[in-house]
């Protein structure tokens, strides 16, 4: 037991330790946000017509003062695509992070749980046979189909998770089984479909931001903007889930209802994103792992950090997709995988702190 003065000193030591931790994490968040802003400007500058960063910043801050052509290219052509990269990157990354959290499994992501594959199958049905689940606005036929199949997949996963004796490993296994099934079904569709349709399906599954428009951006952004505070509200409980079910329960976390709530939110996030841009599998796995390495498990920092790192990765991916072959925009799903996975492996193999 210690004297009063000792206790005061110790309490100070504790607060100092914690404050240092918090400041370090805040700085990392600021650094990520700065990198993101920079990456966005570079992304906007690149394209068939190249602009200097100064011009881009000027056009962003005072759109009425720059010449008409620059304004149109930047604001109407490139901006929705560049912002879509950020929104989709953030959405998929956050969805993956929370799937990993609620399933206690580092392999969980929209891709490995079959949600992306489900979306792909839905899109393929629409592209190849014009099978439309809800016919309205032509521009949205493919995304709506993809979205519905993705949500259906999520609900199947959730339904399974309710069964007695189903562990998180079983759920990930089921997800991977679904990936194979959907892939087989897509091959079947391609086998019967016309050449043109096959090309469309293949292109869709590569994942591309070029289909982005302002309305699609607004839809994805509003889902993200609604989802983030809902998830943040559960920050302490979600952090506790990383200590294992028994520990989380003993802290009063209601596992079942929390899992359902979070799974619903992240399914929506993931489904909306993949249905607009196609399969970009890798973000939902890597974004969260990078954020965990940088920021630790406290969701008050991990949640924004995951969104930022996902957005940053996809934004850098978007830059690379224009730079690798000048004049050609390589589908971003391919680029993020080729550029990102070696980087990811490097991080995993060289990390100093274990995160799982």
């Amino acid at each position, binding site marked *: *037991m*210690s004297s009063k003065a000792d*206790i005061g000193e*110790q*309490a100070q*030591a*504790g*607060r100092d*330790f*914690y404050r240092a*931790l918090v400041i370090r994490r805040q700085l990392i968040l600021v650094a990520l946000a700065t990198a993101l802003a920079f990456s966005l400007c570079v992304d906007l500058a690149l394209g068939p017509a190249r602009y200097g960063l100064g011009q881009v910043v000027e056009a962003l801050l005072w759109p009425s003062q720059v010449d008409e052509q620059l304004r149109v290219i930047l604001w109407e052509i490139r901006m929705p695509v560049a912002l879509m990269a950020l929104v989709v990157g953030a959405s998929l990354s956050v969805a993956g992070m929370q799937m990993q959290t609620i399933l206690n499994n580092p392999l969980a992501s929209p891709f490995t749980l079959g949600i992306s594959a489900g979306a792909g199958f839905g899109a393929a049905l629409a592209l190849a046979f014009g099978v439309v689940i809800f016919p309205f606005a032509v521009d949205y036929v493919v995304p709506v189909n993809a979205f519905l199949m993705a949500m259906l997949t999520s609900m199947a996963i959730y339904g399974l998770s309710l069964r*007695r004796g189903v562990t998180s490993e079983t759920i990930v296994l089921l997800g991977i089984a679904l990936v194979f099934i959907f892939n087989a079904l897509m091959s079947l569709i391609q086998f019967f479909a016309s050449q043109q349709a096959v090309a469309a399906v293949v292109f869709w599954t590569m994942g591309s931001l070029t289909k982005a428009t302002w309305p699609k951006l607004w839809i994805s952004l509003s889902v993200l903007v609604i989802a983030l505070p809902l998830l*943040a509200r559960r*920050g*302490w*409980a979600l*952090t*506790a889930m*990383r*200590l*294992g079910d*028994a*520990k989380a*329960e*003993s*802290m*009063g*976390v209601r596992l079942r209802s929390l899992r359902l709530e979070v799974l619903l939110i992240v399914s929506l996030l993931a489904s909306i994103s993949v249905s607009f841009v196609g399969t970009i599998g890798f973000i939902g796995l890597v974004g969260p792992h990078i954020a965990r390495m940088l920021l*630790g*498990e*406290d969701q*008050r920092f991990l949640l924004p950090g995951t969104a930022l790192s996902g957005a940053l990765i996809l934004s850098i991916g978007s830059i690379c997709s224009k730079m690798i072959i000048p004049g050609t925009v390589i589908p971003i799903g391919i680029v993020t995988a080729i550029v990102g996975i070696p980087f990811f492996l490097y991080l995993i193999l060289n990390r100093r*702190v*274990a*995160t799982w």
Partner: protein
Amino acid sequence: MVSLQLQDLGAAYGGNQVLSGISTPPLTGGQLVALLGPNAAGKSTLFRRIFGLLPGSGTVHIDGTDSPNPIAYMPQDNGSRPVLSVYEAILLARMQGRRLKVLPEDHAEVERVLDVLDIGHLRSRNAGDLSGGQRQMIGAAQALVQNPRVLLMDEPTSALDLSRQIDMLTLLQRLAKEQELLIIVALHDIGYALRFADAAMVIDKGRMIACGPTAEVVTAEMVREVFEVEARIEPCSKGSPQLIVERRAAQPSDLRPGGML
């Protein structure tokens, strides 16, 4: 003062009824109660049932407190996830159900618990890298930091060394008295129950065998019946009762077909 009463409590896993008819008189604050029973008797299950993690028949009455979460529960398994610093892991237990912002009093509470358990030096360590006993201390801290009125601790001393076992039970005894808490600890060491606990509950095969003041409940007959061990209970030189084990009572039941193993 807080009081807890169990009425005809039951619990089942799937179709397997593991607890039934558990009733107690009102257990009031200010006491340390030992929960005794052989392996698989249902001690952990009873804690989970009281804490509300298991459905089942019967009722748990809590009176004399207006706290919305009067019970804290330290599970038997402390986990070993390498994910948070000790300080954060304890703060996390405190912040459940609260706002995202950590207030100065939350930090003060964490520091108080670190000090009371004498684990301040572990503050910045990764909670997953600790030894088994250190993890158990963190588990105790996570329960205490919630400022409960009723504290359920599942074998809080099972991984501790001799001096820390005594420190822990002495501390719990003192906290029960000073803060009028009701603390129920599952224990395997009947000697400690005799020495530290004001009251004892004995369960065996999911049923309540006895509940009352320690001296009345923990007797040579009870030890023979429930634990199948011949023992004497004698006052030591300082006067507190002690358990002296003589031998295994009957044929070890767990080696017979249909036994525990």
